[in-house]
């Protein structure tokens, strides 16, 4: 009988442990098995990506529609090429959409915001967004401001 209660409590313990793992996976890390890897890729070139990193979110009107999967330097254009994965249900981005690098809050993470255009055609997987706006770099801003002051 003592052995039995022991076995039951051990079984219970193992169960809680695995449940905890599941909670961590789904609730804390927001792991969504369905959307991972099922999306399509689009690209954009930026002159300066600032502090953008892989896994940064891609959003439209503040709603996340994908994430940055890879960042590399395009050797011909000498610009940053950002690869984004867009969720499969977002299949209505117009071909003349523009992408800009934004910052959440004053000191927060950088992310990509997509602003829809008016074109009837939609972005196909693998296509580029040509209309881009680089990240704001504080030093550049200060530099421009000072130049203006001097020229006045």
């Amino acid at each position, binding site marked *: 009988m003592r*052995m039995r209660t*022991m*076995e039951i*409590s*051990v079984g*219970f*313990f*193992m169960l*809680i*442990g*695995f449940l*905890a*793992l599941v*909670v*961590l*996976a789904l*609730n*804390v*890390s*927001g*792991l969504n098995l369905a959307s991972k890897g099922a999306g399509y890729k689009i690209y954009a070139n930026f002159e300066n990506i600032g502090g953008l990193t892989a*896994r940064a*979110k891609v959003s439209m009107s503040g709603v*996340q529609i994908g994430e940055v999967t890879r960042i590399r330097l395009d050797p011909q254009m000498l610009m940053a090429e950002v690869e984004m994965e867009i969720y499969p249900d977002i299949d209505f981005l117009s071909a003349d959409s523009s992408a800009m690098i934004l910052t959440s*809050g*004053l*000191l*927060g993470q950088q992310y990509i915001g997509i602003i829809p255009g008016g074109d009837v055609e939609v972005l196909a997987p693998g296509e580029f967004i040509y209309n881009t706006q680089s990240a704001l770099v504080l030093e550049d801003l200060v530099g421009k401001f000072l130049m203006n002051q001097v020229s006045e």
Partner: protein
Amino acid sequence: MIDFMQKLGHRTLSKLAAFGRSGQILFQSVVAKPAPVMMFPLLIKQIYFVGVLSLIIIVVSGLFIGMVLGLQGYTILADYGSEEAVGQMVALSLVRELAPVVTALLFAGRAGSALTAEIGLMKATEQLASLEMIGVDPLRRIIAPRLYAGFICMPLLTMIFAVVGVWGAALVAVDWLGIYSGSYWVNMQQSVDFMSDVVNGLIKAVVFGFVVTWIAVYQGYDCVPTSEGISQATTRTVVYSSLAVLGLDFILTALMFGDL
């Protein structure tokens, strides 16, 4: 000077010999011999002692650490107007660092010291020698189930600690301080990655569980079989495993999160 060198040499050699013996114990009890079917009930019993009985201290500590993190995080982040990020801060610090490390330290204090004392007492009362004379290898009968139980329990306890901590922080931040619960969870989900955060935390837990149980079992098996020897061995278990956990944590963190 020569005396000092001799002492140093002696200590180095004896430490090396101890390390060798502990490796031998590990090898003979776990690696060289597959676990026989007979071990299963023994394993259940050890998981009960090592895991189930540690559950309370883990849950209570996890809850309080989570609550403190929630409170501290809120007051600090509120200065920057970004108190919504408290979920992210709590979850990352728990999953990556606090859950594995604090669980391992508590585990060393709760289960490790008990393991050492139990095995040391078995040695002092000649139970280990008696097993040998009956023709049963004490490494397989006594040591191996305890080692396996340690490996199994540590990751589970760590996961439980992390979940309870996150929940405790939510309790403080959301229910008490009034952060919008959606932003608490969504912020958290966006910043915590399953592979690089949760799985890495899990890897840490497995490594710590392995090291702590190994140290505990070795100290018990190799202790001087007197009451003084057992108390020293128990102290050494807690000290050595805490140091090992903290040191290894740095190394693992550097490998996992620092781009070294």
